[in-house]
């Protein structure tokens, strides 16, 4: 469980997140959605300690995110971002194994886990020795996901993991990702700006606007009981939603 208690974040004059209380359930998939610049990525960065909150506290499984706890916490959290953030000087395998090697895990255990992850993410094992520049966009996202899952984290944070992919690959990866989520049964927080994708993945949807949580609930809750005209307009603006 991830708890945000009166958390706000300010960058100079801009307030990226107003004081917010938010509870993200363990073992379920929570989707953060909202227009560009509403503070979605900021929330993920606060959770993993890349940003320090201006006010308030964040707890992960009861443990407060602080300077002294952040390294240990990060090792129990997987983080995947849109651009992949792969290390260009390392091969796919080296990217995935970097942290495990740093922690001196036994070689056999690492190899077993690597093969498991290839199978889970449908990544071809013979491409493991390639460098990021030699991989397709979809393959890069798979490597990024494997890297995030390597240490068997309790929490997985994904910031628009499929944003940079073409629609065909994206649709296939959505299916695969959902299957992975179901197999893992982890606490998952996923950011997207696509309501269809949100509805597809989410147990809970958190809709944000201009640094505030506007409404949270299932897609049905949002559709049938919109908390404001913004919610209705936002849903309306997302075409093709009726199909879900």
């Amino acid at each position, binding site marked *: 469980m991830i708890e945000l208690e009166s958390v706000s974040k300010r960058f100079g004059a801009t307030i990226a997140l107003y004081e917010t209380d938010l509870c993200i359930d363990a073992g379920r998939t929570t989707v953060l959605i909202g227009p560009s610049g509403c503070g979605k990525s900021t929330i993920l960065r606060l959770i993993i300690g*890349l940003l320090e909150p201006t006010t308030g506290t964040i707890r992960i499984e009861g443990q407060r995110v602080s300077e002294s706890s952040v390294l240990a916490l990060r090792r129990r959290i997987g983080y995947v971002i849109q651009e992949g953030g*792969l*290390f260009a*000087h*390392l091969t796919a395998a080296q990217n995935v194994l*970097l942290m495990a090697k740093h922690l001196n895990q036994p070689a056999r255990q690492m190899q077993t886990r690597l093969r498991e992850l290839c199978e889970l993410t449908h990544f071809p094992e013979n491409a493991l020795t390639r460098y990021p520049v030699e991989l397709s966009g979809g393959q890069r996202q798979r490597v990024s996901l494997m890297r995030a899952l390597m240490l068997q984290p309790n929490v997985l944070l994904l910031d628009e993991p499929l944003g940079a992919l073409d629609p065909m690959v994206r649709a296939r990866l959505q299916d695969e990702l959902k299957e992975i989520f179901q197999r893992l049964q982890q606490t998952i927080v996923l950011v997207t700006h696509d309501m269809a994708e949100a509805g597809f993945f989410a147990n809970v949807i958190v809709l944000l606007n201009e640094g505030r949580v506007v409404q949270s609930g299932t897609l049905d809750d949002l559709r049938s009981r919109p908390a404001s005209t913004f919610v209705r307009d936002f849903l309306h603006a997302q075409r093709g939603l009726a199909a879900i």
Partner: protein
Amino acid sequence: MKSAAILFAIFASCSVAQPQQIVVGSKRFTESYVLGEIAKTALQNAGFTVEHKQGMGGTIILWQALRGGEIALYPEYTGTITEEILKTKHPLSTDRMRALLRQEGIGMTGELGFNNTYALVMRRDRAAKLGISKISDLRNHPELNIGVTHEFLDRQDGWVPLTTRYGLQMHNVRGIDHALGYAALATGSIDLKDAYSTDAKIAENDLIVLDDDLHFFPQYKAVFLYRLDMESRAVATMEKLVGTLDEARMRRLNSEAERTKNYALAAALYFGQKPISPSNDLFGKIGRWTLRHLELVGASLFLGIIVGIPLGIRASRPGQVSNFILATSGVVQTIPSLALLALLVPLPFFGISPVTAIFALFLYSLLPIVRNTATGLQDIPTAVRESAAALGLEPHAQLWKVFLPLASRTILAGVKTSAIIDVGTATLAALIGVGGLGEPIISGLNLNDYSTILQGAIPAALLALLVQFFFDGLDRIFVPKGLRLKE
């Protein structure tokens, strides 16, 4: 403190001192080279092991080196001792001079014989036709074309006071380069110029020296200055040279030295013997210069790397400190290299030594390394930065395992730039007598001898190219394959 110790270690390894060896120094002009070789041969004949550091620099540098013990003796002139070393306006008696030098721990031999002072020279035929043999004869020829060196025009004991003393009123006087002046004399575009009384060109061009009938020019009698702690047997050997060299003989030796560029040979001529070891081995000399050059570049670059990369890492973070680091290393780069050397030499710990040259080169090598390290790190995309942190890597592990490898290509390019700058700038180290490929360049410039200049210039240019290739090769070793694939 630590870096001082490292500098010191490098210095120590650069100048390996052997205990029983006598080191002779000389200034950077032909006559001094020849006298240095004569001293070397005389001492060798007396059974000493001798090294001759040729053409170390000007008076100040030789004097400092003598007092600092870097050399044991060098040839000097009485006029220079009075004016530049003891800095008195009035002529001193020999005894007074000895007493003053003794206070500095330095001894002086008797006079070798010749007086190398300023002189006015004319072509023999022209002088005969006009009936001129002494300076006072010039009073009757105010129309003569005079071409004297700029230095002579300005000096306290130069042209202006000379004309006052002799009551000369010459109409056509101009400044002209020393070497060019001889050519101008030969073609007749000037009639008279200044020279040194032992100048080899006097004999070569069939010139006559006008008699200084009013004794205007100060005495520049040649002597050797030596450290008082030099072995007394060596002192006795040097004293044996006293009174053995008159102007004509010195001129002949100078002429021989300039013609052959072989100072040992000229010295051998003095002793009437064949040179013991013909130091004509050009490749050996170039090899030694190159080796010294590489020592200077290598040591300064090494310091540049171990100081520059950490500074660059610090400067990659935003803030005032970073601006300060970048601005400071930028400012250092804009100081002309000559000025930087001149500023460092008088400081304690530096002086006339390889340390000074290495330190100056080190300062020049900093900026490219610092700047490239900083930009290389700053150019790493935020996504990659955040991914490294989000994995749970400690900050130093992020740096070593991710950021530095990603910036390696840019950092290496900075080191390469520094290396090439250093190879070029290190030629100036010869100005403070530290050697390297600048040595033949600078002595060639002083002696107006292009072949000597090229002996330094060509290897230096080749060395720069080689460094370029070398670093292109290093690219393949230090830059991870994943980064090189992009091309």
